């Protein structure tokens, strides 16, 4: 049967705030382990804020994010053959103690727990997973865990899979494969059908993900583009001594855009137009710009609304 994914309308994480937890005293050893927690943190930053997650825009506008913080747990060690419940209890305990931040108001937080080398899941053969638990306030706390074979590339590949799936389907109710798409148990998600197909994005190893629009596994990255580039987005007319507002939508959130307004009606007497810009993030990947243009003269003025895309980062 052909691979096909459908949006079932459940919760997604639009703009992830990833909180990294390094569980176990081994992360604080001297000399430090390979890889170190600093190296893993750098890799996660490259994943969540680089081009890798931009391809998720096709899934209800899901986009990038950032690393909210990190914490190393020295006072306990994960048991070998650990369970999801034990990971959930760790996170719940750290939140309850005020050691790590609680969920943000819009529940975009993803807690990611990194195991020390040599510690395995109770479920044989499973090297990473994401799921959630329900806290005492009835809110769902989304988390993932990642095992460690002692190489940064393995950790980052597993984590990239779990982060992307946590965003597109944090609760098993959003972007899911149709019946027959996956052969294994559990939620059938966009990373599951692309395992073993890896690449490098933003200087770190990642796993490819299913692109429903391309109908194949893709290592997502930024499109090739030379910056800056400019253009005229719209033209308009503002009546005498009044203001009007235009909006323009679905601008990539990872691009930095500036706006200017230039009259096309000639006037030799003085300043004609002024403008201001308001911004709205309609989804993780998309920005809407609202440009208010004010005509300071006693006659109608036509104008061009011009953009300059200054660049992107990471």
């Amino acid at each position, binding site marked *: 049967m052909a691979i096909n994914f459908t949006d079932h309308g459940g919760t997604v994480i639009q703009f992830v705030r990833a909180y990294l937890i390094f569980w176990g005293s081994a992360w604080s050893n001297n000399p430090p382990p390979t890889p170190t927690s600093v190296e893993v943190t750098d890799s996660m930053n490259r994943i969540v804020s680089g081009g890798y997650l931009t391809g998720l825009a096709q899934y209800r506008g899901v986009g990038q994010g950032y690393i909210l913080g990190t914490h190393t747990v020295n006072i306990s060690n994960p048991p070998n053959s650990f369970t999801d419940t034990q990971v959930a209890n760790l996170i719940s305990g750290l939140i309850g103690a005020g050691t790590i931040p609680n969920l943000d108001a*819009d529940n975009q937080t993803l807690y990611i727990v990194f195991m020390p080398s040599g510690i395995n899941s109770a479920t044989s053969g499973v090297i990473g997973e994401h799921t959630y638990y329900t806290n005492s306030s009835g809110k769902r706390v989304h988390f993932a865990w990642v095992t460690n074979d002692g190489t940064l590339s393995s950790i980052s590949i597993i984590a990239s899979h779990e982060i992307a799936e946590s965003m597109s389907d944090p609760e098993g109710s959003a972007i899911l494969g149709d019946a027959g798409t996956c052969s294994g148990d559990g939620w059938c998600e966009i990373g599951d059908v692309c395992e073993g197909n890896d690449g490098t994005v933003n200087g770190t190893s990642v796993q490819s993900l299913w692109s429903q629009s391309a109908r194949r596994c893709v290592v997502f990255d930024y499109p090739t583009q030379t910056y800056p580039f400019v253009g005229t987005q719209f033209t308009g007319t503002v009546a005498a001594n009044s203001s009007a507002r235009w909006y323009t939508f679905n601008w990539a959130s990872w691009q930095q855009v500036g706006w200017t307004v230039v009259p096309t009606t000639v006037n030799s007497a003085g300043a004609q137009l002024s403008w201001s810009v308001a*911004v709205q*993030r309609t989804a993780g990947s998309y920005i809407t710009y609202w440009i208010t243009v004010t005509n300071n003269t006693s006659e109608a003025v036509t104008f061009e609304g011009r953009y300059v895309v200054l660049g992107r980062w990471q």
Partner: protein
Amino acid sequence: MQTGIQFRGTLPANQTARWYTFNWNPASYVIWTVVPDSINTSAPEVNWSVAVQRTSATAVTYWISITNTTNASVDIEARYAIFP
């Protein structure tokens, strides 16, 4: 061109706050933009203005005032672009 995120913050509903960032090279052309990190599907969320201070012959401080135009708290990020 060099671009990046200089700071992130949170603005309470319907409030304006000002951030400053210092020791920028006065010879550089720096453009500031602000983007919300909170999702809102119904209305514009923030606008901003920039003021500038020459603190010495070799340094500029930028003051960025950001206004939350919604009835809910909004997370923001302030982005810079430096033209060489």
